[in-house]
């Protein structure tokens, strides 16, 4: 597991559960800190789940996720 940088959080929203699980596997395998959380209702009317990451790892994670379609939302407070 990588060290937590505590630079705020970013929410990654995917098009469906398959993509969430696919992305989670990549993020977990690389050792980034993350949590699976409900999609915040202020961001989307979606009823499913999404991935919350440390904002400092965003660029690295996006690079690892390659072609996976993802919506990015930076949070001010922990949901």
């Amino acid at each position, binding site marked *: 597991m990588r060290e937590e940088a505590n630079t705020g959080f970013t929410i990654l929203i995917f098009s*469906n559960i*398959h*993509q969430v699980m696919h992305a989670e596997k990549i993020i977990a395998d690389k050792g980034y800190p993350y949590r699976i959380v409900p999609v915040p209702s202020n961001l989307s*009317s979606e009823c499913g*789940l999404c991935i919350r990451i440390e904002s400092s790892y965003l660029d690295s994670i996006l690079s690892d996720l390659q072609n996976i379609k993802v919506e990015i939302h930076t949070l001010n407070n922990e949901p």
Partner: protein
Amino acid sequence: MNLYFDNSSTSFPKPEGVSQSINEYFSHGGTYGRAAYNRVIEVSRKVESTRSLLANLIGTSLAPNVVFTSNATHAINLFIRGMRYPKKKVIISPLEHNAVCRPLQYLFQTAGVGVDTFPHHPDGRIDIQKAAKVNFASYDLGIINHVSNVNGVIQPIKEIKRLMGNTPLLVDASQSAGRVEIRADEWKLDALALTGHKGIMGPTGTGALFIRNPDMADPLIFGGTGSNSESYLQPIDLPDRFEAGTPNIVGIYGLWGALSSGMGYSFKREHFVELLHEISTFSSFKLLAADDTDFQSDVFSIKPLGMEVSELARILFEKFSVETRSGLHCAPLAHRTLGTFTTGAVRFSLSKFHTDNDLDYLHSCLKKIDEGRS
């Protein structure tokens, strides 16, 4: 001793991991997606892990293009009935099952879709040399039963698809998945339907459709997916486009157990080929199998001469405890091709659990019946 020779109907026994995995699900429960507590996350991981295992089994890197269905018939219907038919022509193998023939008959009656048959050898294997002269561009779709559920012939899918070019090909892998090699990407397959409870040895109620280009077919079922919930439109992304409603999670857990078992064959291939050769020498039976053993899977049938097929099945069970399936095997087209319509045949379908001793026992049973009649 394993005397169950009806694995083309459904496999038995199952690998231990099937019931273990199902029990694991019942112990913790949870649905697929829709929420973000641990119970759901665990189930979602398992469902997606199973999808990846299936993609790996059929040789595709496109895991989201593998959509869960309740069986192969569901998968075939999803694709056949979801397609549009501007040319109104389909070409099929001569060994198709009613899972293909009946939806095509429906399309013939309701939409005027016509059906031709691939040129073939007497055992139903598609004749590659003659097929090279077919104008495939005049067809909307080709459909091929990869392994016959009657005589076990393995069709040369790779070569046929190469001849077909851009004309889409749907492979019915009901009998082949888990039994023979499938390379969906390498062979450039457009679609493939499979079931989880036969060669793969998972539970009934599981299956999948691989669809390379999702725009080729409209969904068969519309509804909730846990995604794009604000919209009344079915999502366009895979697998959600074709997976409305809660999936068969119990079945998918069992399927995961089967796919993870890593089980190999317990009998030797040459022993099986020798068994077929021996049966072909019995004067009381006509063997229904591939003319070339290179194209033979572990399914075959026999037609008793001068005896009803149901009578042979009864004797095999009552005197020898051998379980088989007699009749037409839901494949009247295949039996027409093989000259055994309308009586059918007695089918023997093996599994990875059979041993050389089981094959020897089957040989001795058939030999006794043959000697008693000659």
